[in-house]
């Protein structure tokens, strides 16, 4: 569920860096706006459009009132309909940041010597972009991916509040409101554990993707 914005963001960012020019500028305007959109407000606006105006999608909860009586495909459809708005909101606000990041990383890599060599070898622009630029640009994105694991937890707090989604974020907000300290502490501990796991995962992924990190002397490379 959290992969959608990342994948879309990488695609958009790569496209921007490849095209450049006016298209890039136009898309940049969109991504910076998405980046600045507060999730809770975007959620409200989507509820306004899709629930109140179009009357197409349910605005809150993880299941309809009649969920207990639904079976088979109807049950799945009901769940999916309830998932739609929160998922769209999370995707839209996630795309902006990732696309901006990927675009910056690709523009950085593009000016490095090995790309010039790849071009001089006569590789097609697509091959240069995908195999030589994108691959290198994605290494920091992998780190970002690992680091965003805890955002699974905290990033959705506002979204869960808007859509009354029965998730950990909402539990935490309610606990804060009720001064339920044990629950707050538990939620904090869980998310801190997730951060450590995410960091570990990010390191591992980066080492796997980037041979330079494997051959680096102990203690890491100086920055």
């Amino acid at each position, binding site marked *: 569920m959290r992969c959608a914005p990342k994948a879309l963001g990488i695609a958009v960012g790569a496209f921007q860096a490849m095209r450049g020019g006016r298209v890039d500028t136009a898309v940049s305007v969109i991504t*910076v706006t998405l980046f*600045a959109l*507060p999730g809770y407000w975007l959620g409200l606006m989507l509820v306004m459009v899709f629930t109140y105006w179009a009357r197409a999608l349910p605005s809150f909860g993880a299941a309809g009132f009649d969920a207990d009586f639904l079976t088979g495909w109807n049950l799945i459809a009901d769940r999916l309909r309830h998932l739609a708005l929160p998922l769209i909101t999370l995707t839209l606000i996630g795309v902006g940041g990732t696309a901006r990041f990927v675009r910056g990383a690709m523009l950085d890599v593009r000016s490095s010597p090995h790309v010039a060599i790849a071009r001089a070898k006569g590789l097609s622009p697509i091959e240069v972009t995908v195999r030589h630029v994108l691959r290198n640009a994605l290494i920091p994105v992998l780190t970002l991916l690992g680091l965003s694991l805890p955002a699974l937890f905290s*990033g959705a*707090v*506002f979204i869960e509040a808007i859509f009354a989604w029965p998730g950990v974020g909402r539990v935490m907000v309610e606990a804060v409101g009720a001064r339920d*300290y044990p629950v707050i502490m538990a939620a904090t501990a869980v998310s801190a554990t997730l951060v450590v796991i995410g*960091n570990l995962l990010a390191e591992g992924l980066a080492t796997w993707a980037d041979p330079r990190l494997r051959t680096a002397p102990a203690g890491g490379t100086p*920055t």
Partner: protein
Amino acid sequence: MRPLTTLLQDSRARFGLVVLVLAAAVAVFAPLLAADPTIQRDIVATRFLPPLSTDLHGSFHLLGTDRFGRDVWARLAFGARISLGVGVLAVLISVAIGTLIGAAAGFWQGRVGLALLGVTDFALALPRVVLLLLLASLWQPSAALVIVVLGLTGWMTIARLVHGEVRALAARPFVESAVALGVREPRVLLRHILPNALTPVIVAAALGVGNAIMLEAGLSFLGLGVQPPTPSWGNLIASGRDTLVNAPWVATAPGVALVLVVVAATLVGDALRDRLDPARRG
């Protein structure tokens, strides 16, 4: 003045600065631009008026009124004071703490540096939103608390930036010569190293202001930040949430204002980075 003029050549920066200056002007001159939002007259007759309408008393409502008959534009203008003020002050606190810790860690690289870096990484490991909720739960919510809480949870990235910069600068010849001249350590750090290390801090601060404004609004939206009736853009959005069906403008107006200001701050930050960062200039 030269950096400013080159900055103004960037269309992103121009747009961003214009929006930020306008928003700041609205915040500063709010009492002149809008009627006092605390004055209440006839609630029933003036509530839920759509934008651009005039009520029975002949007063004009640019953005309509909310469920208590309060003018949305006035609440927005007075809310700008809270939202922008909180954002800027919180970032100032972050910058102060981050620069101090980062500079100390980068300059005294032994045990002190390791300990400070450890603290920074530890604080960085806690997700910010969770930390915000935790801190907000400990005390009575208020604007001052939001400033302190946002300031205390935003310094880590700045500390790491300053640390890297100071460490690199400490090995440069001009620092060595200052030490060789017998300049005392704090003076070397403050007069010779820090002024050269502030470039990334300025960029991070510009980007941080937008983020802080957004987080303040988020906290206020959840009811953990600025408390109504004091208007902040976050609790304005929250108050418009219940009336989304019959008065969508109550939640829309502060949201659009918020997005505009955050976009502006981000654009100015981007433009500053492109101008100031030698590695990106090209």
